[in-house]
């Protein structure tokens, strides 16, 4: 088994794992019956799914003998931005009162999203 074959097999495996996680993520998105729980499924499993797909890409290029690492960059961007998206969607849910009301914070008076002086 050459390095290329190993990389190819690894890439294939990564592809399968990655796409599996992607599927699980969207299944969760469809399956869960509460907006907040739904939020868990894709933003998390997505990271793993895409991560594995990117790993597959990395390995595939390695297998072709043209090593490539810039896939890491995509991963980095996703890691930085995904929490922001999730945070905002959660805020929307809280703001729209479409979820169970969160418990009061311990130190401060309320949650920032609900802290609306103009209502």
């Amino acid at each position, binding site marked *: 088994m050459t390095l290329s074959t190993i990389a190819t097999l690894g890439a294939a495996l990564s592809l399968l794992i990655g796409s599996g996680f992607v599927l699980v993520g969207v299944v969760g998105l469809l399956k869960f019956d509460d907006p907040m729980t739904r939020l868990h499924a894709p933003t998390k499993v*997505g990271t793993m799914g895409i991560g594995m797909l990117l790993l597959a890409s990395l390995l595939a290029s390695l297998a072709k003998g043209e090593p490539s690492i810039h896939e890491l960059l995509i991963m980095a961007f996703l890691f930085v931005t995904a929490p922001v998206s999730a945070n905002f969607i959660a805020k929307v849910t809280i703001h729209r009162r479409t979820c169970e009301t969160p418990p009061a914070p311990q130190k401060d008076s309320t949650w920032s999203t609900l802290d609306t002086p103009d209502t």
Partner: protein
Amino acid sequence: MTSADGLFEIALIIALIALAAGQILSMARLVIGPTVADRILALDTMVINALGLIVVLGIYQGVKVYFEVALLVAMLGFVSTVALARFILRGDIIE
């Protein structure tokens, strides 16, 4: 073509189908809703799935230049999610 390549090919096709199915399922969530948060979430998921799709297409077609596209999606995809959410939260997305 070695067996590894064959396996890889199959894995690629499975991945593509999985991603495509993922898109369709996300779309279903978008249509169902019911809350606006769900819809934004579905869009966000679809953007990330699309990113995956582009990456896998790049491998599948053997074209490296799709990297820049994927990079852009990763870098800027969240902006529309944030903008939509901000719209719900504040109305003014720039204030």
